C-alpha cells in the first residue's frame, strides 16, 4: 500500500472534505493506484541530474513596481454569496 486509510482521512481533513466511510475506502483505493502508477518514475536512473521545481527553462519574470487600477469593490464582490457592501461576509471565525 502506498497510502493508508488514515493518511487519506488526514489529507481530507486538511482539505476540509467530509468524506463518508465508503468514500474514504474508495479514495484510498484510487489514490493508492495513482501513487503506484507515479511510482514508476522511481525506476528511472536520475543519477547526476539536478533537481528542479519547474519544467520550463525560464527564470526571472518580473513586473515593475507601478500601480495598475484595481477592479473596484463592486466587481470584486460580484461572485460573493454574501457581502455587507464593502466586505465579504463569511461564517463567523472564532479564534
Amino acid at each position, binding site marked *: 500500500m502506498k497510502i493508508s486509510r488514515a493518511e487519506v482521512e488526514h489529507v481530507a481533513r486538511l482539505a476540509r472534505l467530509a468524506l463518508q466511510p465508503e468514500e474514504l475506502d474508495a479514495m484510498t483505493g484510487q489514490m493508492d493506484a495513482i501513487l503506484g502508477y507515479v511510482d514508476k518514475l522511481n525506476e528511472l536512473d536520475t543519477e547526476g541530474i539536478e533537481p528542479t521545481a519547474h519544467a520550463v527553462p525560464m527564470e526571472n519574470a518580473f513586473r515593475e513596481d507601478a500601480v*495598475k487600477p484595481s477592479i473596484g469593490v463592486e466587481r*470584486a464582490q460580484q461572485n460573493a454569496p454574501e457581502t455587507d457592501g464593502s466586505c465579504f461576509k463569511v461564517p463567523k471565525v472564532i479564534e
Partner: protein
Amino acid sequence: MDSRYEVVIGLEVHVQLTTKTKIFCGCSKDFGQEPNSQTCPVCLGLPGALPVLNKQVVEYAIKTGLATNHQIAPRSIFARKNYFYPDLPKGYQISQFELPICEHGWLNIETEELGKKKVGITRIHMEEDAGKLIHSDGNSSAVDLNRACTPLLEVVSEPDMRSADEAIAYLKQLHQIVMYLGVCDGNLEEGSFRCDANVSVRLWGQKELGTRAELKNLNSFRFIKQAIEYEVERQIDVIDDGGKVVQETRLFDADAGTTRSMRGKEEAHDYRYFPDPDLVPLVVDHAWVERVRAELPELPEAKLQRYQDELGLTEYDAGVISSERAVAEYFEALVGLHNNAKICANWVMGELSRALNENDIAIADCPVTPDLLAGILNRIADNTISGKIAKKVFEEIWQSGKTADQVIEEKGLKQVTDTGAIEAILDEIIAANQSQFEELKGGKEKLMGFFVGQVMKASKGKANPGMVNQLMQKKLKG
C-alpha cells in the same frame, strides 16, 4: 527570574515592505482605503489569474539581507503554503520554503545584563500577506482583502536570545536597520513590523531545547517584553507543578498582561509546501548583489562607531543621533557646516528635538535647516551671541525662516563685548546692592551668581557672561 532555568527565545519578524504595489499584482497597497477597493483577480485568488513578481520586492529583500550579513542565494524559488482560512483567498499563501533568498545572517546586540553578543538569523524569505478579518458580534465575520498579497519579508532568527531584554535589543536593531534602508515604515501598531516570539525554558546545562510556545499579537516593544516575561514564568510554573509545556500558539492579552492558548490550531502546521508552478525561479547574479551592496547606506552600527572615533562624541550621544537615519543625516549636514561636533550633537538632541516634538514635525521637514542652525552655532562660536540668546534666535528662525545674522541684526541681539559698557552696568548694580557686594567680598561666594545674573538681566542677556565674570573678579580684588 528563576535562576534554575535558562530562557531560550527565537523571533520571527514580518516586515511589510514600502513598495507602491503588492508583491504579485499591480494593486496599490496604501493603508486605510475602503475595504476591498484595492483588489484584482490575482489578489482575490480568482481562478486563472497568474502572479508576477514585483522586482522591487526582490531588490528590498537583497538590501535587507546584505544589511543583516546574509548570503544571497543565487537561485531561489517560491512555494505554496497550504491552509484554509477566510483571509486567504487562494487556500494557500505564496511564500518561500526550500531555497529562500537570504540565509545565514546575524546581528550584533547589546544589553545591560548580558553584554554584547551576536544573534544568528537563519533566513529571510519573501511572501505575501493575508487579508484582514474583522470579527463582529453577529453570526458572520467580514473579510477585507486590501492587505492580501502585500509584500512581506519574514526574518527568522536562531534561538539565540536568552532574555526578554535581548529579544527587544535584537528587534530594535532590526527595526532600526529596515527603517534606515527605507524598506519598511516601521509602524508596529499598524502591523508594518510584526513579531512572533518562540519561547521555551530549560534547566541550565541541558542541551536539548525545551518545548516552545509561539506568542502572537505582540504589537509594541513593551508588549513583546511583557509577553515573554509572563510566558517564561508560566512555563516554569507548569514544570514546577510536575506538568509539561505543550507546543502551541498563544495570544498575548494586552489588557491582562497574560498569554492564552489558541486552541484548535494543532493541525494547522501541516502546510504541505510545494514549489509554486505559477512562479519561475528567481536568479540573482553576483553583479546584482554587488550593485545593491554598493548602494547600501552607512548603517547605524557603523555610524555609532564613527561618531565616537572620528567626531569624539560620547557613546550615548552617538547612539541617540545614529538611531534614526533622518536625524543622523541632519547631524552630518550640520557637522559639515560647523566644526564643533559636540555642540552640533547637543543642539540636535536638545533644542532641535524639543522643538520638533513640541510641534510634532519630522526632522526632514524642520524649518530650521542644518544651514540655518549652523548660522546660529557659528555666531555662538565667534562670541556674537551667548548660548542663551542663541535659543531666542533659534525660536525666531523657526518662525520666520530668516538667517541667524538677519535675526541678530533686526532684534539687536548682538552680545555686548565692550568692556566699558559692561563695566558701567556692573557698577550700577554694585551700587544698588552694596551690602551683598560686601558679603561677597567677605567670602560668600554664592552671591557671585546673583551679580552675574543681574548684569545679564540688565543687558537683556546680551552681556558676554565670561566677560562679566572676569570684570567681577577684578572688582572684588580692586
